[in-house]
């Protein structure tokens, strides 16, 4: 069963840098007030280029990756879940949201200091409380989004909050008025930010942040597109550690630079030299939705069958922006080549670009997602698909059973496993591995 190496492999050189950027992100948030700066909280999909116009000392914390960090810390996660349940919130709500609320209710932050170094709590950091944000800047497309922060605001004693309704329909039905509907909300939001923070808004900083956003989202997609190569230069477990930067601060210069100048050239080089993420690659699958974060080992488990998970619509399209290229294949979205001359114009281009996000399309119909998944299955040359029936995220799991049928109809074997992205009580590792064994057998890997 243990397959022999077919391809050379090597560790990613930019790995440590990715980890450092992530840690600095959380540290900056914690220490923002010490430097006279501001802290804000919002979702990974929020229009984060907007608060950037308040100054270079304004630091965010994004909810989903922070909650995934808690999920990785099984002890803390259980405390958070239970604290949320004690408050009366039911177990079938978004599990990221429950982890996040639990972190506030218990006043336990997932990071802290150990011998002066900023480290995760599970690495022995001295506990610190949840640093309260100065304002909330959120978007709303999943029905949990605005509610999530309404509760956060209440739990924290009333934090000023602004939410943008970006659920305006699928990208192929985008119209000028739909774009303007979101733009007008962003313009009002800027007024809210000025009033709340008592700072003047700097449009030049906004323009820079939007440009960073274009680069981050396009370059990430470009790196993912390179995974069409056989052998795949990246495996999904590594992809999780890399895509996360885009979920932290896609409009941040450090993230745009990392994707453009570190990750992309390295992945291009790996493809050129035939460097594999999984040296015994014989089978290729993709997954879907967030993984059960405390059981990422299932992706390593695949390797003993010579199977690489090349990513997913989730990891490719949660942050990445894509377009259909001239030859009909899916590739990175072209970065708009223009100067910004006014706030209105910059916001218009920003919104027009962002409303094409692949992971927003299935909110309107599961069939849009099925089409994208089948496209990936074909272009990334997959042998099968592993679908996570994720009880912890209604937003991304909605329609997944339809996706399964569509993939089967398109000729791709599918294995579905049940679990939860952030509530490990709903994941059965032994059973899932037994299912993987059977699925690998059906693919001929055993």
């Amino acid at each position, binding site marked *: 069963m243990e397959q022999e190496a077919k391809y050379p492999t090597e560790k990613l050189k930019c790995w440590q840098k990715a980890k450092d950027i992530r840690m600095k992100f959380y540290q900056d948030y914690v220490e923002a007030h010490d430097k006279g700066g501001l802290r804000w909280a919002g979702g990974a999909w929020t229009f984060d280029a907007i608060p950037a116009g308040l100054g270079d000392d304004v630091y965010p914390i994004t909810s989903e990756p922070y909650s995934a960090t808690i999920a990785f810390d099984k002890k803390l996660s259980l405390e958070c879940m239970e604290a949320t349940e004690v408050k009366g919130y039911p177990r079938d709500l978004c599990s990221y949201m429950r982890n996040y609320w639990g972190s506030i209710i218990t006043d336990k932050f997932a990071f802290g200091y150990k011998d002066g170094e900023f480290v995760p709590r599970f690495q022995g950091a001295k506990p610190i409380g949840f640093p309260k944000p100065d304002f909330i800047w959120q978007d709303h497309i999943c029905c949990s989004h605005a509610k999530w922060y309404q509760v956060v605001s209440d739990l924290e004693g009333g934090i000023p909050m602004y939410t943008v309704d970006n659920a305006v329909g699928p990208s192929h039905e985008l119209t000028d008025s739909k774009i303007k509907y979101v733009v007008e909300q962003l313009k009002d939001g800027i007024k809210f930010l000025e009033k709340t923070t008592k700072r003047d808004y700097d449009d030049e900083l906004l323009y820079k942040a939007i440009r960073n956003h274009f680069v981050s989202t396009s370059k990430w997609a470009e790196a993912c597109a390179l995974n069409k190569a056989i052998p795949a230069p990246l495996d999904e477990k590594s992809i999780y550690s890399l895509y996360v930067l885009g979920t932290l601060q896609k409009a941040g210069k450090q993230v745009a630079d990392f994707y453009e100048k570190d990750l992309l050239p390295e992945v291009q080089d790996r493809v050129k030299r035939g460097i594999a993420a999984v040296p015994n690659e014989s089978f290729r699958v993709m997954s879907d939705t967030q993984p059960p974060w405390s059981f990422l080992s299932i992706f390593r488990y695949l390797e003993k069958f010579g199977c690489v998970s090349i990513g997913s619509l989730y990891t490719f399209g949660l942050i990445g922006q894509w377009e259909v290229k001239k030859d009909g294949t899916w590739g990175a979205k072209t970065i708009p080549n223009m100067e910004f001359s006014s706030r209105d114009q910059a916001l218009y281009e920003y919104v027009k670009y962002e409303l094409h996000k692949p992971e927003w399309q299935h909110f309107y119909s599961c069939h849009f997602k099925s089409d994208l998944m089948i496209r990936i299955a074909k272009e990334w040359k997959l042998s099968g698909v592993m679908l996570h029936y994720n009880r912890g995220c209604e937003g991304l799991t909605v329609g997944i059973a339809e996706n399964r049928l569509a993939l089967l109809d398109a000729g791709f074997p599918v294995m579905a496993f049940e679990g939860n992205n952030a509530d490990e009580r709903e994941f*059965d590792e032994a059973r899932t591995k037994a299912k993987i064994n059977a699925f690998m057998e059906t693919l001929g890997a055993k």
Partner: protein
Amino acid sequence: MITMGIDLGAKFIKVVILKDNKIIAKSNVLAGFEVDKSAQKAVDNALKDAGITKDNLDKVISTGAGEKLAPFYDETKSVVGCDSLGAVYLHPAARSVIDVGAEEGRGMRCDETGKILDFEVNEKCAAGAGAFTEAMSRALEVKLEDLGDLSLKATEDIPMNAQCTVFAESEVVTMVHNNVSKANMAKAVHDAMASRITSMVRKIGFNKDVVLVGGVANNIGFVGSLNKDLGLKVVVPKEPEFVGALGAALAAAGWIGGK
């Protein structure tokens, strides 16, 4: 060629020994808490029954939830893979197989060789497995082996809404208070379980040749409810609890169907 298949299920350990693809011995031992010791006993019993020793075995394949706890084996194979091979061996027309064991319900589609094309497992829920009938027979104070026959005497269809063993148990208690007959309750239990299994099987699709394997296939009441739900008559092989172990032994012999 002599091969052995060991199926370490959640409740019982089944062993089948084949000589040139013909069954020469089998054994069935309660797994209990010391599964490794029970597995040893099951293997020893089968070897004794066959009149051979371990050294006479050419290949051994282990399967089931406790596959790694077998006293010895050359390879492991998934339960669904073994089930389908065993089912096709016993009933060559089989293209759909349902396995209802103590802890899990499984549905699979296979080709004429016994190779799995698609499968589904009833995860993390006893309501579609033997544990459900066990819990319900306790609640009804009826012996598990009598539950099937009892349900055939039912006079009414009583819907059981709960999809969870714990809630179903309290629903049974409510029925007892409402003076529902034990026969009607037994049928309600089987109907609920069959509907759980049917919805799982419908997910992967099935054709007319459906083979039902696993220990629960011995429950005549459940089989009746399943037939009604699926709208066909499932094929239940003799000693359906051995089909997984048989499939493992067949896989060890390199047997494939359709040849």
